[in-house]
């Protein structure tokens, strides 16, 4: 149990740097010259990091059990929903007030990008489902009585 907790802790810290500290640093850097554009992204990065870190730690703690695979499936599904919501269904609209009474509207069609994200996530989901099936079949195989060679009469 203790090595599993240590492993989960190390993985959690590594993911914290990779999925929170580094993206947050980049977002804050670009926010410097376009604060109106990137201000909302800090919240999204935090939410994404929270989801990824939670599932990384939880799957590590439950590794070797059916819960690990269930969490992997859950992670894939939650990430698909997260990407769809974060990208506003692929059509992102932004309204900027550049000067008094003059507004600039930006509409970015990111549906192709969203499709790529969802497709890769679906691939991950398929992998998780197969891993679950494999895990269950291995477990069933182990529980079956072992066949003994018959002695010659």
């Amino acid at each position, binding site marked *: 149990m203790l090595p599993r907790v240590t492993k989960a802790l190390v993985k959690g810290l590594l993911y914290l740097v990779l999925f929170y500290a580094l993206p947050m640093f980049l977002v804050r850097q*670009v926010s410097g010259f376009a604060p109106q554009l990137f201000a909302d992204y800090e919240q999204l990065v935090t939410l994404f990091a929270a989801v990824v870190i939670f599932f990384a730690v939880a799957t590590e703690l439950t590794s070797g059990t059916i819960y690990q695979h269930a969490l992997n499936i859950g992670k894939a599904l939650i990430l698909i929903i997260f990407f769809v919501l974060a990208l506003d269904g692929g059509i992102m609209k932004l309204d900027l007030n550049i000067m008094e*009474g*003059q*507004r*600039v*509207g*930006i*509409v*970015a*069609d*990111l549906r*192709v*990008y969203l499709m*790529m*994200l969802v*497709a*890769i996530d679906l*691939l*991950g989901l*398929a*992998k998780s489902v*197969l*891993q679950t*099936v*494999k895990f269950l*079949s291995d477990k069933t195989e182990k529980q079956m009585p072992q066949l003994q060679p018959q002695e010659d009469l």
Partner: protein
Amino acid sequence: MKQTVRALTWATSVFWIILLLFTVTVAYSALQIRPSFSEPSVSNSGDVLTASLPMILYNGGFYDISKFNITTLIKDHRGQTISCSSTFVPIINGGANTTITHTMSLSIEQAAIGNLSHLLFNDSELNVEAAVRLVYARAFPIEISLNLSMPWGAPFANLTVGNISTRPLNLTHVRVLLPLSFENHSFLEMNGTVRLEIADQSNHIVGNGSTGFMLSPENRFETVVEVLVSGDPSNIREAHFYFQTAFFDYGPLVIALV
């Protein structure tokens, strides 16, 4: 099944890496786009007023900008379209500089004969809707739109016809003196002629006159037009004004006389 799971693990990892690289390079490339604008110029040939906005677009990133389209739509305060212009550039390659000149044309004669004649006599606010559409990295269609309003100065603003006075000339004719004034609020030098006809109660033209004018921007024109009218001056009902300038001809503008 083991091989399938392994293949899927590899495929997922490889696709995530490709997507991450694509995302980072697209974000970096987008930050390398540098538009710069030159001094806009306004010229007129005949009755067509042309405004040109030259710009240089430096696409310093790795990806192409395709289907680049600038559209400007100018409308009056009632929503009537005055001018609609579009500039299309099929492709701006990555690392290339492209000079784009967007021109907006406005035919004053067309404006005068259309439903926009109120712009000749009334100052107004024009709504400018500008939109830039492009496809970045052949995957991301983007639209940037800007709405702004700009003041419009009428070339015959505050057109006023004062009280007419009559002086008898002979038994059949009278001399009608008609005070006329207007201001040139436009940025154009307005030179031309105002011709006027006087109509009586039964809509017969009973007299006509004309006056020339030369008016630089932000100046006022005042004159008294003398018209020889036949018949009884108490029968005078209205004046029909016809404007002839280098840019357009407009008329009749009917004003009731008291």
